[in-house]
């Protein structure tokens, strides 16, 4: 499939999203490029619209105006075949996991694989265990149901499901929230390993300063419905914007840097 010339995997132009028939305008003329093979960290205050942006890009929230291209396909106008081809190439981790509650962990992870690939039961089981291992879970977890998991385990299983088909692009909504610091660190390592080996592109909404420092290649900041700054962590730290300043120089940030 053809990709746009500047190798942006996701291209968002002048995106506007409203709720309640214009009562609340969450995104207002937003522009964003996510380049192939990068890990983009997306930050912004709570309720700024990070999840809404992610959900709009993947086509769950209707947009009022603007263009969105993923893998060079405009999902707004694409037919269902083109959409399916794109959906096959991405993986999504929702903020609250969104595991299928009536399926076991094993079935949750195998669900997309069964849909798209015609492989043996044996390979399915082996891949499931491999994915569980990658996200730091033991094989014993495979036959439990989502309601029998802890919050952090739900996150990990949801990540394993997002990675089930070895996608080229993953959307992660606060992947490390609810994980212990060691688990969060392992998670950053895993994402970086996958980026290096599979050339994975990652769109990651996060509040985790450690992830921003260690894993992210670039950081984008959402404020007032727009991307107010994009750049490396050093650019962010040098910025004079008041919110960025308190975000990257606050007490917590200092603790991470020191």
């Amino acid at each position, binding site marked *: 499939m053809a990709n746009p010339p500047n190798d942006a995997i996701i291209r968002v132009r002048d995106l506007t999203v409203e709720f309640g028939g214009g009562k609340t305008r969450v995104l207002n003329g937003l522009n964003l490029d996510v380049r192939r093979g990068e890990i983009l960290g997306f930050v912004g205050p709570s309720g700024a619209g990070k999840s809404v942006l992610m959900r709009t890009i993947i086509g769950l929230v209707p947009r009022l105006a603007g263009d969105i291209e993923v893998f060079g396909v405009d999902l707004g106008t694409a037919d269902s075949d083109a959409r399916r081809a794109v959906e096959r190439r991405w993986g999504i981790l929702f903020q609250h996991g969104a595991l299928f*509650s009536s399926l076991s962990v094993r079935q949750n992870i195998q669900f997309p694989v069964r849909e798209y690939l*015609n492989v043996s039961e044996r390979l399915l089981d082996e891949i499931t*265990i491999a994915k569980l291992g990658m996200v730091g879970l033991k094989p014993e977890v495979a036959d439990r149901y989502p309601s029998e998991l802890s919050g952090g385990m739900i996150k990990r299983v949801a990540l394993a499901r997002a990675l089930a088909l070895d996608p080229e692009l993953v959307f992660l909504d606060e992947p490390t929230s609810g994980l212990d610091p060691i688990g969060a660190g392992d998670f950053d390592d895993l994402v970086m390993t996958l980026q290096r080996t599979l050339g994975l592109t990652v769109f990651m909404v996060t509040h985790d300063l450690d992830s921003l420092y260690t894993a992210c290649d670039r950081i984008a900041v959402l404020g007032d419905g727009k991307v107010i700054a994009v750049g490396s962590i050093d650019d962010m730290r040098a910025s004079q914007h008041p919110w960025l300043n308190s975000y990257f120089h606050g007490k917590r940030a200092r603790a991470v840097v020191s």
Partner: protein
Amino acid sequence: MSGGPALERMTQGDALALYASGPWTARYAPDLETLVGDVEKMNSKSKRVLIDVSKVAKLDTFGAWLIERLSRSLAMTGAELRIAGLSANYSTLVDEVRRVKETPPPDREPVTIRATLDRIGRSVAQIGDTLIGIIEMTGALLFALWTVVRHPSRFRFTSVVHHLEQVCWRAVPIIVLITFLIGCIIAQQGLFHFRRFGADVFVVDMLGVLVLREIGVLLVAIMVAGRSGSAYTAELGSMKMREEIDALRTMGFDPIEVLVLPRIIALVIGLPALTFLGAMAALYGGGLVAWLYGGVEPEAFLLRLRDAISIDHFMIGMIKAPFMAIVIGIVACVEGMLVRGSAESLGQHTTASVVKGIFFVIVMDGIFAIFFASIGK
């Protein structure tokens, strides 16, 4: 080569060389599986095996795992194994999957006679659980009622009004429509068959007794069980699923008092009102058919109705209504509280709520029939 993956074999004495090439990715997983399976089946006796992956264009976890699987099964034959041409990037991936231990087989329940019997036994035992649950809920409800009576300020009036709107006011159109139609049908059928004996006018007796005493309340109770019982179960069940009920409890609220009591009070008020409306609609429908189809003038109909039925028939119907409301409400709330974490469980309990609700309504009606017969009404 058509761009797909390949695994070429080359044997030289006791040495085997495998050259992997092309994309070893999820997309080609079915092909890759056959390629690897063929080599495994070949059951080579070679002492030294070389797997060369330098020509692999693309590798992901599927490919990496299949290479790992291949090397594990070759190592099992006791061969000396070497993997060549693994770039630094890909070797981290292979290391990642190498940590996978032998996969435990999934515990899929076998379908045996024993398991079937086991399931039947359990579902029989569950009937007992339902009864205990109903008794427990009744007790908790009486307790909550007592609390509210002692502290009237804790009565949730707004909530009762809200539920009354949901179960009663919004149900009026459908209940009136359906009971009206049933009244029409009873009258039409009665006329059709009674006419042969010239007993047209007894249709009014039949309609009056049937509607006021049995059909009216039964029909309305069944419809309310389907309409509001299921809603109660689904509401409480999804609150249970999302730990909302636990949250209430930890804030010092009694979920029975806050959630269940207002719902049941709303039903106890709403169901008799709907029963009354339903009975009137059915009599109206029956009268209309008697007039238009049977030629019984409205005045004659009303006169006959006054002779045929007594206030007892009406009272018997109305007395049953609140009891049926309590049964429907309690069954629905018990089922709602039994919902466990999954969407499937929510569906099962909602179904169970309606089925059990209707069952108990009919059982209750039978008990009342015996009771009234024995006191001679």
